Structures are given as structure tokens and as C-alpha cells.
């Protein structure tokens, strides 16, 4: 029976971060993962992450995954793939199935980082081929390069549903609508906005009631729900789709921990009771990432590293002083992600009406997925400056993110110390129109507006992540925040640069009075 200082179960963001920390502290570390490739779900995350520099904000998830793998290799972490951990015992032994044989390993410390699985809701036809998890669709398109379908109904407006919907569009798949039984969009407003402006409708207080078809999905029916989430007869609406994606939450995969006998509790599923460093009630057995409570990859990396440091400290590989330092750093980093409109303590709340700054949150954004024209002026990223090019930041909720502040070298954008503050645009500072802020915004909420383009025209520059890129001179229509055509538009330029990592800057020319309305461009004039 082989023995390790630290055994990590799960090679996702939490597990790898713990393994790297452990190995760098001098521990002999083994990571076991049932999959053929390491990285967990990180390699299908092709969007730019939120947070600050220390959270690797504005870096796309799969690039963070590549870096973690490189770091793990450098640190000398041993990664066993195709290795299903089937048993975890309180004496810190594990049983692993590798190539149809079962092996025993012993760890002086063990970290469980097995992640989560997708939830489902049953409805008529939900077992038909074509009904799948949003994560499944993401896996098919972003990892394997295969479209999951041609036209999708997305069920769930949390960040997973929103992010995957956008990625479906990027993969050339149509999204018919996004439905959610809740009365409010669950995910970040910026994620919803970038879908709505392309013309995708949101149906809040609606749920899917039927997937049609005999041997695969050929359509779907949704219906409005009452306050007890029961479908209201007579409100049904039909969509021609071949795919229904379910993004209705995740559940921790804590079976191994339950088997080990550690104390558990219910927190959106069964999770282990852990201390502030992730140690369970069984000494030396730790848990980190989604298995200890559903969050997202950025916090998984932090809790993973924290648990890895705690394990190293427990066995004497990391001095108390060094541990205190790492621990303080990680806890501070985590605290930053846990503030604002979407903080853990605000989860599920529908009564929030104000931002941390005391500004009214957009009702329209919650209800329809876009900021209304009347609301937009109240946010500090939207300046009244009418001379020359300037950024317009349509960031209206306190989400933990600040790359725009670092992107501007000319002092146009201030977020301040707390990364959940709304960005403030300084109308006095000189904007040179470089567009770095536009490309750095993970929420794609920054536009450059120039009202003085001449001839009564203005230009609007927007982030654009679709192919083909429109060519200069191309004519089409500008779409408003609600996805409806507002005016004719002509492409001035479409700039791409390596620094912007596949976010193109599309500049369109519109009549001056439309500069605060035009937020997307479509060459399909029929819109």
C-alpha cells in the first residue's frame, strides 16, 4: 500500500490548487481523478473570469486551467487519471479503481475536492434525447467541438444558464429563450444583458412543462408559474427547439465524505461540516471547492489552496508563521469574492433594492434581463460627458470585479478598494479610446461612445465575441439593450489584438441621438 503525505481526490480547481500548495511546501502529493483529463470543469470555461488580479480576473477559465496544470507539474504533483476513488475511510485510507483493479493508498492527510453534479427537474419528456444539462452542452461544444443541437431552450437564469447560453451563441447555436421559475434573473445582470441585446428573450416566472418528440426533442412548451411555482393553465407557449438545456443548480458530490463518517450538514445538498481551513470533523481529512458548498471556480482555488496549506501545517511541512501568512492571504482573497449583491448571505434574496452605494438596483434588469433607458443614467459608470470619446460602463450591481480600473492607464475609471464597488467614470480624465477597458470587462458591460463623430453621427464601440467579424463599411442595424432594432448602423472598424484575448472591439456609426441606445450590431436587417 503506497503512502503519501497528501492525497487529493479530484483534479479540478480546488484539488489542483491544494496539491500545488502541498507539494510546494515539501509534501509528497498524489491526486486521483476519475476522468481521462485533469482540470475538472475549468477547461470548458471559455469566458473571462471575474475578481481582481489575484483571482486571475479577465483571464479565460481554460487558460487558468492550463496554468494550474503547469504549476502542478512543476511542483512535482503526481496525478493519477482514470482512477475512480470508490472508498474513503476514517483512518485516511482510500480504495481506488484503476483499470478494473482495486488498489489501496494511505494518506497522512486527505483532501476531498470532488466537485458537484448538475441538478435536474423532471417534466413531461425530460428523458428524451436532446434534453441535457447545461454543463453537458458546454462539454460537447467547448471541449469536443460539437454543437449540442441547433436551437436551444435554456432553463435557468443563474450564471451557469447565462454563461452557457452565451457560449451556445458563440458556437453557432441559436438560443430560443431563457426561462426561469423565479421572478428575477438569478445570475449577474451583465451576463443577462449581453444575451438580451442580441435579441434573446427572458421568460421569468416561467418553467418548462414539456419536451415534445418521439425519439428526440422536436419542440418544447413553457408556462407561467404562480407564486407556488405551479404552471398556470392557459399560459403555455411553444418553441421550435431540438435541445432543452437544464441549468437548475448544482449539488455537491459528497458521497465519499459521507462514507468516511465525518459530520455533514445540509447547505444546498449534503456538505461536510468544516472549520475555516476546510478540515472536516475527522482530523486530517479536508474538503474544498464545490463539494464543501456550491460556489464557483475562483473561490474553489482559494479554499483548495487554504486546505492544502492547512494540511501541510498539520504535518509540519509548513511553519506556523508561513501558514498564518498564507491563510490570511487566502481568507482575505475569499472575503473579497463574498461581498456585494451576489454574496452568499444575499443568496436567494428577492428583496434587495439598493446597491452598496445606495443607488436603486435596476428592476428592469431583474425582470427582463436589460437596463431600461430610464434607469441607465443613475449609475456612476455612465457619465454625462458629451465631448469626445469616453467609456460608458453599464455595471449596475455590486459584483466582485475590478479589471476595468487597472485597464485604464489614464485614470478614467475608479473602483476603489472594495472590488464590489460600482466603477466610477471620471468625466474630466482624458479617454484616448484605446478600448482596453472594453476588452477587460468580463461582463462585457463597457462601451466607448463618441458623440462627436461629425455629420450628426456618433460611434459606439462594443465588445464582440462572435464570428464572422463584421467588416468595415458593412451595413446593418443597431440593437438596443432590449435586443430590438433602434436604427440603421454602419461598421467603422472591428479591431482585434492579442492583448484583448479574442474580444474584438466593434465600432459602429449611428445617428447621434442613438449613441446611448445602440448596444449591439446585427447584419440581419430583418431584425
Amino acid at each position: 500500500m503506497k503512502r503519501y503525505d497528501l492525497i487529493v481526490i479530484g483534479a479540478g480547481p480546488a484539488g489542483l490548487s491544494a496539491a500545488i500548495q502541498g507539494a510546494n511546501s515539501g509534501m509528497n502529493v498524489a491526486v486521483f481523478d476519475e476522468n481521462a483529463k485533469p482540470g475538472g470543469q475549468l477547461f470548458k470555461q471559455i469566458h473571462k473570469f471575474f475578481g481582481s488580479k489575484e483571482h486571475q480576473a479577465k483571464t479565460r477559465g481554460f487558460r487558468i486551467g492550463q496554468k494550474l496544470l503547469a504549476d502542478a507539474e512543476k511542483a512535482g504533483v503526481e496525478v493519477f487519471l482514470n482512477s475512480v476513488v470508490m472508498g474513503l475511510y476514517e483512518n485516511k485510507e482510500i480504495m481506488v479503481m484503476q483499470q478494473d483493479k482495486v488498489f489501496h493508498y494511505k494518506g497522512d492527510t486527505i483532501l476531498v475536492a470532488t466537485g458537484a453534479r448538475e441538478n435536474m427537474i423532471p417534466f413531461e419528456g425530460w428523458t428524451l434525447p436532446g434534453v441535457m444539462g447545461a454543463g453537458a452542452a458546454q462539454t460537447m461544444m467547448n471541449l469536443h467541438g460539437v454543437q449540442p443541437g441547433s436551437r436551444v431552450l435554456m432553463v435557468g437564469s443563474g450564471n451557469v444558464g447565462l454563461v452557457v447560453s452565451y457560449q451556445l451563441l458563440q458556437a453557432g447555436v441559436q438560443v430560443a429563450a431563457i426561462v426561469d421559475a423565479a421572478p428575477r434573473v438569478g445570475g449577474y445582470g451583465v451576463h443577462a444583458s449581453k444575451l438580451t441585446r442580441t435579441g434573446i428573450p427572458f421568460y421569468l416566472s416561467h418553467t418548462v412543462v414539456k419536451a415534445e418528440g418521439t425519439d428526440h426533442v422536436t419542440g418544447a412548451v413553457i408556462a407561467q408559474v404562480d407564486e407556488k411555482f405551479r404552471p398556470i393553465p392557459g399560459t403555455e407557449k411553444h418553441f421550435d427547439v431540438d435541445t432543452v438545456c437544464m441549468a437548475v443548480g448544482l449539488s455537491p458530490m459528497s458521497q465519499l465524505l459521507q462514507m468516511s463518517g465525518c459530520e455533514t450538514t445540509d447547505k444546498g445538498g449534503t456538505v461536510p461540516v468544516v472549520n475555516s481551513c476546510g478540515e472536516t470533523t475527522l482530523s486530517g481529512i479536508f474538503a474544498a471547492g464545490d463539494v464543501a458548498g456550491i460556489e464557483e471556480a475562483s473561490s474553489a482555488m482559494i479554499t483548495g489552496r487554504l486546505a492544502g496549506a492547512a494540511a501541510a501545517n498539520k504535518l509540519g511541512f509548513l511553519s506556523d508563521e508561513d501558514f498564518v501568512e498564507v491563510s490570511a492571504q487566502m481568507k482575505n482573497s475569499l472575503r473579497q469574492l463574498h461581498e456585494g449583491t451576489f454574496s452568499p448571505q444575499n443568496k436567494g434574496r428577492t428583496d434587495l433594492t439598493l446597491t452598496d452605494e445606495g443607488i436603486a438596483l435596476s428592476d428592469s434588469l431583474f425582470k427582463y434581463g436589460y437596463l431600461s433607458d430610464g434607469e441607465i443614467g443613475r449609475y456612476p459608470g455612465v457619465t454625462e460627458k458629451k465631448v469626445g470619446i469616453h467609456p460608458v460602463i453599464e455595471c449596475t450591481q455590486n459584483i466582485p470585479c475590478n479589471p476595468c480600473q487597472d485597464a485604464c492607464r489614464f485614470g478614467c475609471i475608479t473602483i476603489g478598494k472594495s472590488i464590489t464597488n460600482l466603477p466610477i467614470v471620471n468625466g474630466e480624465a482624458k479617454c484616448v479610446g484605446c478600448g482596453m477597458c472594453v476588452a477587460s470587462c468580463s461582463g462585457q458591460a463597457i462601451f466607448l461612445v463618441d458623440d462627436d463623430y461629425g455629420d450628426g453621427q456618433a460611434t459606439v464601440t462594443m465588445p464582440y465575441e462572435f464570428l464572422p467579424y463584421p467588416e468595415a463599411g458593412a451595413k446593418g442595424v443597431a440593437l438596443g439593450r432590449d435586443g430590438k432594432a433602434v436604427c440603421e448602423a454602419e461598421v467603422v472598424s472591428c479591431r482585434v489584438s492579442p492583448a484583448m484575448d479574442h474580444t474584438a472591439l466593434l465600432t459602429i456609426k449611428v445617428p447621434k441621438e442613438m449613441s446611448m441606445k445602440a448596444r449591439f450590431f446585427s447584419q440581419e436587417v430583418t431584425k
Partner: protein
Amino acid sequence: MRITNHPVLDEFPKGRQVRFTLDGNEMQGYEGEPIAAALRAAGIMVHRHTAKLDQPRGIFCAIGRCTDCVMIVDGKPNVRTCVTPLREGMKIQTQYGVRGKE
């Protein structure tokens, strides 16, 4: 359908093109990709039919958890096609219950 042009991902690393059969019909896919990916790219939706009610099932979780996409691969039933790499000459059969079609 395969994605040939993606605004963020420059390429989808694939192995060489290989041939396999589905219920005796010649198919093509890329070595090393999940069997399920090759099937979906070829427009195949139904992987199996359930034992009692004969209901169709296809890709559901795509990461090897739900077992909805299991098929008979080289004579072995209940193979999770979403996490099993495609190899040259594989013989894949739609599964009925736990068997192939008589």
C-alpha cells in the same frame, strides 16, 4: 454538427480520422474523442432504449455520471460513450435494455 470556426477557441485538438460502425453502418470520427461526440457530430441522438418501457435515451450529462448514454461497445454493454474514447474499428451498437437488437 462540428464547430469549425470559433471566436474564442482557436482549435479543437483531435486525433486522426478513424472509421467505426454503428449497428453495422460505417461511420467516421476522430480517434480519442468520446464516442458520444462522434455520434452527435453525425446526427445520432438515440444511444439506447430502456429495458421496461423501451424509451429512447441519449446524451444527458456528458461527463460520465448519469449513464444515460451507455451503448454496447465491442460486445460490452453499459459502456458510457461520453467518456469512452473512440478507436479505429470500434463496433458500436444501440443498446436495448442491456442487449443489442436480436
